[in-house]
């Protein structure tokens, strides 16, 4: 009989029940291997296990057939989806006495793609072996792997949408074995085999189809698992051209570089996780501040890194591109992972992912603490993330919630000349209170829901809403002892411990509708989608100077309340012509409104007597829009050429706006030219190459003196990317990328009172941007040996990152950074043990470098010349993890 597995867990139970209760048949090999029967000699296989066969020794114990323990669903070959078929591949499987699959051969082929997918899947299955009495015996079983199309339409119009292949499960549904059979049915006429449904991973299919350009990268879970990652931010390194550092400790957002952009904490990258945007507009520490610390690496199913701004769905901060963390857990069950390691690091991870439920349904939590790899780097954090996916064919939805808190010490930065002279250690902190009192506390709570309705002709309606509350209190000191109080100029020399507070309540909504596919001619078909997004942010900000260690406030720099509103609208076309040409794109426009209550605005320190009440309230509103389009040409099935152009924007820091100012957006114009080559039905080899040119009307760089981003004027990036992924065998995953970038300043820096004639040469490099970023990931995962009733499997992986010398201001160059990480693990039944090593060569490197003036001595004449400062990267770090999956 053919068993249809609607959900793996139910199927497993059903299969076990049926195997026990029915006359499912298997051949007991015993000591005499009867050999693999001919495919046609089905009756030879169907040894009756339930009743002694005629002539059989009545003393023989009944054969209890093998039972499925784990049966990961096969993957429907994406390349065959357009055909709209639902074939059944019949396999003849040899199950050993230990329950391991010993041999598989195709008995009834349905083509190379389906055969391979079925074989690969069944090889991963585990069985409770067949038994005769108390003895486990080898057996042969016939397994029918039935491939079904997704129960909903593929969301993007493709060939299948215009061929009458709409999936109607009811038409193809076969009666379940549990359903009453018709009277008179002879079970011997049924196919007494196990079966499984192969459901296409709809999300994976959608993700691939959403890739618009050659620079639109999806990093799947297999690639993410190759190399170890301390946190979700480090996962971004697997994407081409991305470099991630965390120079300000575990409670402050990462510093991210992508494609010639030093995005700082997110100013040039639109980042989302679980459908909720993470960037925070007008954040005091950095425009577009996006802290990825709350994302647990274990719940990241895939990463989509869209380099460039060519998609009308991309909104604010999508200057270099956008990043989306898709959350989900492939491993199911109750999972516990306990980690110990270097520097007193302890982490406890706990997750529950119900078997049979969707991958996007899970609950996970983690607690982590560490003493840190150097002085003043201890941290603690706690995270809870939960999602529930619901719905079926027509309606689907996801509920998401996250709670997060982290507190960490900051070591801040060190002058390189102090390190070189031995006045301070590379991993130390300046031994003065304004340095040792640096710390940060970050919290986040968010709730989101998305609903999606899919029609029979690929039309789709989506709606979503989210609510988030974030908080950051950061105390940092980049400059030592240089500040003077503005409120009372007699207060000086108390240390530049700069406290920044950003407290935000944010909420947003989105809605979109895609029309049914339209085919005006046989060679042309397409659709259009229109949508809107909106977000409202209510922000309280404050910046003070504190005297450590008692944290007395001795100066106030910022005290403001902001209200920002962003309403975006877009239209997105998707049209195919003659099967080789695809045009996607449209327009996007955003309206941004600001209300700023700057309670310290108009404050003039000491030079004028008080003649007014300090404070400056103002409002501003602006409109920005632009086109985005990509042309994709696919001359042959494995090769696609892309040409793209797009215009995006970044909103300004609200407090820089004047009354009634038409909001001065930083506008970006970007162009891409690329090619993608795919080899193999399972993407055994993918090669992507692209060149890009991006111009930004107003760029911003981090100024340590103010600990904020300051404008520098227009800039241009010119670069190229090469990205290769390979899965030559199912157990081996490899990827590598090289990204070149040249970032230049297009005009003299903005004059200031302190620097009214800034030097400028055409073609002057933008500091901090690395010209070359390399990344390689290689990993292998394989079953090793059957032992103790379970399969022992192993996994090893290596990740390598290289950052070339980055230009710094004032003619300096940072040292290149080369980091090698590796991990290995063994898994046996429900137990897993793994080790991870980071920076295996124990390289002493700077996670980030700046160039500015500072004074850390209280007795020596201070230098006012800008000089190199560094934030140390972590030395060799070792972690060991014990995991249990129930």
């Amino acid at each position, binding site marked *: 009989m053919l068993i249809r597995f609607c959900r793996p867990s139910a199927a497993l139970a059903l299969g076990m029940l049926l195997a026990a209760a029915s006359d499912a048949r298997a051949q007991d090999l015993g000591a005499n291997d009867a050999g693999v029967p001919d495919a046609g000699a089905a009756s030879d296989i169907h040894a009756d296990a339930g009743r002694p066969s005629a002539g059989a020794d009545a003393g023989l114990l009944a054969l209890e057939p093998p039972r499925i323990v784990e049966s990961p669903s096969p993957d429907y070959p994406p390349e065959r989806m357009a055909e709209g078929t639902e074939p059944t591949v019949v396999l003849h499987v040899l199950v050993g006495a230990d329950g391991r699959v010993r041999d598989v051969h195709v008995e009834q082929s349905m083509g190379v793609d389906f055969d391979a997918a079925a074989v690969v899947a069944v090889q991963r299955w585990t069985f409770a072996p067949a038994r005769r009495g108390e003895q486990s015996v080898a057996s042969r079983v016939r397994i029918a792997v039935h491939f079904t199309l997704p129960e909903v339409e593929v969301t993007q119009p493709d060939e299948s949408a215009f061929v009458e292949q709409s999936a109607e499960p009811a038409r193809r549904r076969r009666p379940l074995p549990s359903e009453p059979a018709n009277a008179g049915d002879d079970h011997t006429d049924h196919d007494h085999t196990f079966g499984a449904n192969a459901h296409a991973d709809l999300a994976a299919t959608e993700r691939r189809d959403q890739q618009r350009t050659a620079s639109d990268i999806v990093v799947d879970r297999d690639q993410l698992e190759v190399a170890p990652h301390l946190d979700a931010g480090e996962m971004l390194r697997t994407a081409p051209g991305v470099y991630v550092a965390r120079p300000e400790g575990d409670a402050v957002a990462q510093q991210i570089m992508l494609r010639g952009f030093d995005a700082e904490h997110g100013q040039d990258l639109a980042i989302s996780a679980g459908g909720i945007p993470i960037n925070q507009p007008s954040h005091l520490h950095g425009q577009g501040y996006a802290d990825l610390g709350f994302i647990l690496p274990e719940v990241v199913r895939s990463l989509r890194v869209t380099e460039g701004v060519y998609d009308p769905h991309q909104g604010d901060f999508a200057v270099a591109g956008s990043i989306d963390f898709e959350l989900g857990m492939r491993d199911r069950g109750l999972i516990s992972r306990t980690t110990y390691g270097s520097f007193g690091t302890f982490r406890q991870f706990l997750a529950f992912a119900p078997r049979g439920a969707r991958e996007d349904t899970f609950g996970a939590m983690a607690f982590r603490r560490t003493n840190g790899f150097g002085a003043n780097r201890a941290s603690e954090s706690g995270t809870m993330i939960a999602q529930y996916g619901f719905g079926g064919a027509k309606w689907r939805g996801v509920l998401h919630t996250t709670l997060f808190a982290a507190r960490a010490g900051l070591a801040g930065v060190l002058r390189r000349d102090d390190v070189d002279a031995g006045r301070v250690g590379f991993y130390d902190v300046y031994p003065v209170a304004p340095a040792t009192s640096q710390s940060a506390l970050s919290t986040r709570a968010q709730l989101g829901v998305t609903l999606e309705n899919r029609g029979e002709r690929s039309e789709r309606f989506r709606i979503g809403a989210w609510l988030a509350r974030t908080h950051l209190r950061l105390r940092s000191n980049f400059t030592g*002892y*240089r*500040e*003077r109080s503005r409120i009372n*100029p*007699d207060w*000086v*020399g108390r240390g530049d411990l700069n406290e920044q507070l950003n407290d935000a309540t944010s909420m947003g909504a989105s809605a979109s509708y895609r029309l049914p596919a339209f085919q005006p001619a046989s060679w042309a078909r397409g659709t259009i989608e229109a949508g809107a997004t909106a977000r409202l942010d209510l922000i309280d900000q404050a910046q003070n100077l504190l005297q450590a260690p008692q944290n007395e406030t001795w100066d106030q720099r910022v005290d403001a309340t902001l209200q920002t509103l962003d309403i975006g609208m877009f239209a997105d076309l998707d049209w195919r012509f003659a099967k080789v040409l695809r045009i996607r794109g449209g327009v996007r426009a955003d309206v941004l409104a600001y209300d700023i209550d700057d309670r310290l605005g108009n404050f003039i320190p000491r030079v004028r007597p008080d003649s007014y009440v300090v404070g400056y309230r103002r409002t501003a509103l602006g409109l920005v829009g632009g086109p985005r389009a990509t042309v994709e040409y696919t001359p042959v099935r494995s090769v696609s050429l892309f040409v793209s152009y797009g215009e995006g924007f970044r909103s300004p820091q609200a407090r820089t706006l004047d009354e009634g100012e038409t909001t001065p957006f930083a506008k970006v114009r970007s162009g891409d030219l690329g090619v993608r080559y795919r080899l193999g039905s399972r993407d055994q080899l993918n090669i992507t190459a692209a*060149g890009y040119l991006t111009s930004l009307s107003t760029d911003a760089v981090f100024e340590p*003196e103010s600990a904020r981003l300051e404008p520098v004027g227009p800039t241009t990036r*010119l*670069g*190229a990317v090469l990205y290769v992924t390979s899965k030559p065998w199912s157990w081996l995953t490899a990827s590598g990328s090289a990204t*070149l*970038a*040249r970032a*230049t*300043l297009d005009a003299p820096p903005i004059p200031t*009172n*302190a*620097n*009214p*004639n*800034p*030097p*400028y*040469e055409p*073609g*002057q*490099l*933008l*500091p901090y941007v690395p*010209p*070359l970023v390399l990344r390689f990931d290689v990993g292998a995962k394989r079953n090793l040996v059957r032992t103790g009733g379970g399969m022992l499997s192993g996994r090893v992986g290596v990740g390598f990152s290289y950052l*070339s*010398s980055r*230009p*710094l*201001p*004032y*003619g*300096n*160059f*940072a*040292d*290149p950074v080369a980091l090698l990480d590796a991990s290995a693990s063994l898994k046996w039944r429900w137990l897993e043990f793994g080790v991870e090593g980071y920076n295996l060569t124990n390289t002493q490197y700077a996670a980030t470098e700046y160039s*500015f*003036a500072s*004074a850390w001595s*209280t*007795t020596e*004449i*201070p*230098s*006012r*010349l*800008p000089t190199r400062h560094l934030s140390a990267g972590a030395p060799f770090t070792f972690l060991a993890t014990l995991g249990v999956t129930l």
Partner: protein
Amino acid sequence: MSRRIESCVWTVAFALIGCGQTGQEVYPLRVEGAGTATGTLIVPTRAPPDPAPVCAPPCECGSGDWEVTLEQADVAFGPLYLCASVRAGPELCPESIAEMLDVGVVDALDPAPVLLGAGQALTGRAQSAMWDYGRSWLLTQTEVVPDPRAPGGHSLVLRGTATKGPTSFRFAADVDVDASEAGLYGVQSAPVTRDFAGPYESLSVRFDPGAWVSGIDFDAVACGRASASEVDVSFARTSIAYNSLYIAMNNSRLPTLVGQSSAAP
């Protein structure tokens, strides 16, 4: 330099991206100090007020000018900061374009240059400068702290003789040009025009003590003596003469700063 080459190698190898700089390189800066041979100075007698007071000893009531001979003028100089802003000062000049952190002492009567100290300079134009005369008041200190190299702990040690007619006396002044509050400088802002282009930079600071002295009212000094027989006069910190020297060094008679870029040290 090697890192720049490495950067160029990668970019040139792909024949896609050129090499470049972020602008503003750093160059070594040599700072020298020199004085001015003053010889015998003629300091005019100030016009008396109207109505003129009755002149009596110890004042010198004769007509004519004072002849002043300087015997010692040791001046401490440093630290020095040159700024891109039109006016210097900690708030307008958070980062300097050139600086010398050393303190040196110059015989301001000797025109031969001596090395004051070494510093660094960035590419660019300086339009102002600020400095101390060997006595600094850091932000983190509660009072002015003289550099050990400052002569006697003072900014200027001045000795000389003033003669007019039958009146002659030796005078001494130990002048401290101090910042008015912590974090400021003895000379808060002085105009400078200097373009730094590298690769070797030099700066010459020329002191003219005769100009400092020319503003002293020696008639008042003579009148301020205890008696006509007093021949050693020390300028008290509260005296007009002391204040005259202070203002001259701090504002009205600043040393000149000139220099040049050169291809060789």
